[in-house]
């Protein structure tokens, strides 16, 4: 073989190896079959270009690019979302992602690697189209949460320090209250075991039984008829005044001493 051929062969091998490397790191992927999705966030919690995309914990793609879009509004509700994360998802996982899927940003691994987790959607929902834009779930701001709870703790400490006397007296009073309550409970327990008390309760039960019988009698049909009769009688007696009653009694020849 000629020297030129050997040198040329080596150069070709090197160039081929560069392409192999580009394929290995995922820069060129001629055999890949994946779709793209644009996920919108207002806070992306430190996700980076090249971070993995997972569906049900399985890696199916990566974050292709992150762009700032200051004037973007969601088509549905007009919400302003300013960060566009473009992700690629392999075709094999595509049917699992539906319109009701949710797009979280999660943290995993020893070094705290960030990844984009997609929750599987329900079957009755439609699939996405290639290049669709959708809203992701903003991850919680841990830093904000910590600073807020720090502030709250500070305020609580300040409050306690300012009202040290009243807080301690409140605590002692609470303590007394609990002690008294405890005593009351003990007394109640003792009372429930007392004989006299038992008799009292028995009598009370009997009285209530009698009352039940009485009220049942008052509600019987006979009693209702009696109420009607009384009502009618009263209705008839209503127009009668004193002289009319006297005249009636005189006509009847009855002299009542009481009148």
């Amino acid at each position: 073989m000629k020297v030129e051929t050997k040198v040329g062969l080596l150069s070709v091998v090197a160039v081929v190896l560069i392409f192999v490397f580009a394929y290995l790191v995922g820069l060129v992927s001629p055999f890949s079959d994946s779709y793209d999705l644009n996920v919108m966030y207002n806070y992306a919690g430190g996700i980076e270009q090249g971070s993995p995309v997972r569906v049900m914990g399985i890696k199916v793609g990566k974050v292709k690019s992150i762009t700032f879009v200051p004037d973007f509004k969601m088509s549905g509700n007009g919400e302003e979302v300013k960060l566009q994360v473009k992700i690629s998802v392999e075709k094999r996982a595509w049917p699992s992602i539906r319109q009701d899927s949710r797009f979280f940003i999660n943290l995993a691994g020893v070094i705290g690697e960030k990844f984009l987790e997609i929750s599987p959607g329900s079957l009755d929902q439609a699939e996405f189209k290639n290049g669709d834009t959708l809203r992701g779930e903003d991850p919680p701001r841990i830093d904000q949460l910590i600073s807020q709870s720090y502030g709250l703790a500070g305020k609580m400490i300040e409050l306690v320090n300012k009202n040290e006397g009243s807080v301690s007296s409140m605590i002692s009073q609470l303590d007394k209250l609990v002690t008294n309550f405890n005593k009351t409970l003990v007394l109640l327990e003792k009372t429930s075991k007392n004989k006299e008390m038992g008799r009292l309760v028995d009598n009370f039960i009997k009285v209530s039984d009698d009352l039940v019988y009485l009220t049942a009698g008052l509600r019987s049909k006979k009693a209702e008829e009696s109420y009607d009769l009384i009502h009618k009688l009263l209705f008839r007696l209503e127009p009668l005044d004193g002289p009319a009653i006297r005249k009636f009694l005189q006509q009847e020849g009855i002299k009542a001493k009481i009148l």
Partner: protein
Amino acid sequence: MTTKQLIQNPFAFIGVLLIHTCRDARAFLTLVVQTLFQLVTHLPRKKETIQQLYFVANGSLWTIIFCVCFAAVVTMLESSFHMKLVIQNDSMVPGFASLLILRELGAIVTALLLTSRIGAGMAAEIGSMKVTEQIDALKMLGINPIRFLIVPRLIASTIGCVLLSIIANLVCIFAAMIVADQFLGYSNGMFLTAMRRFVDFQDIIFASIKAFCFGFVIPLVSCYFGFNCRTGADGVGRATTQSVVFASVAIIVLDFVLSYTFSYFY
């Protein structure tokens, strides 16, 4: 000044050292400028360049592949050992070991091996030509020795170093993959996933830029010592040794400068 006088007067010793260093640096820079001038103004000698490229690249290929394979094995096993010692987990080893290979190991091992092989060869070759007055003969014939001798070597070494470093990097990564599979229990898929987490395409570009710079330095240093070779077999041996030492030091320093510069791009 004689050696005795120099030892008696330390200031004179420092002064002489400084003057010699400045003189050598000036001579080296002159050679570099002349070489670049010849490189730009004249077309290189094609046949000689290809011959030199064959000598540099094809001739060193198997040595370099053999050495970087072992370097990869050691890197993987050592990284795993250290990570297990520190955090009881070596799942990140494939990732950062491949990054280490690409950022440092591939290019520098290639360059140092090339220095010891072709750097020494060039210094010895040009040194013997100088001793046997062949360079003077070239001048007599009206041929510029820099254009005739250094430029083809410079082009061949630069291209060869880049080609070899690409091959070395990839071979190193494949060797690391095999080690991870056989000794650490990480399958090829896991290795590639972990690698992708850290490694980007720019890494091989940076490695190639490094190799380009190393390949540029080796023939210049070697040819400088060859051209300034003292007479006699002793002079040639001395020139060869000095060329290997200086080229190695230059490569290490240059590696630091380039690594520091590239770290701004991450």
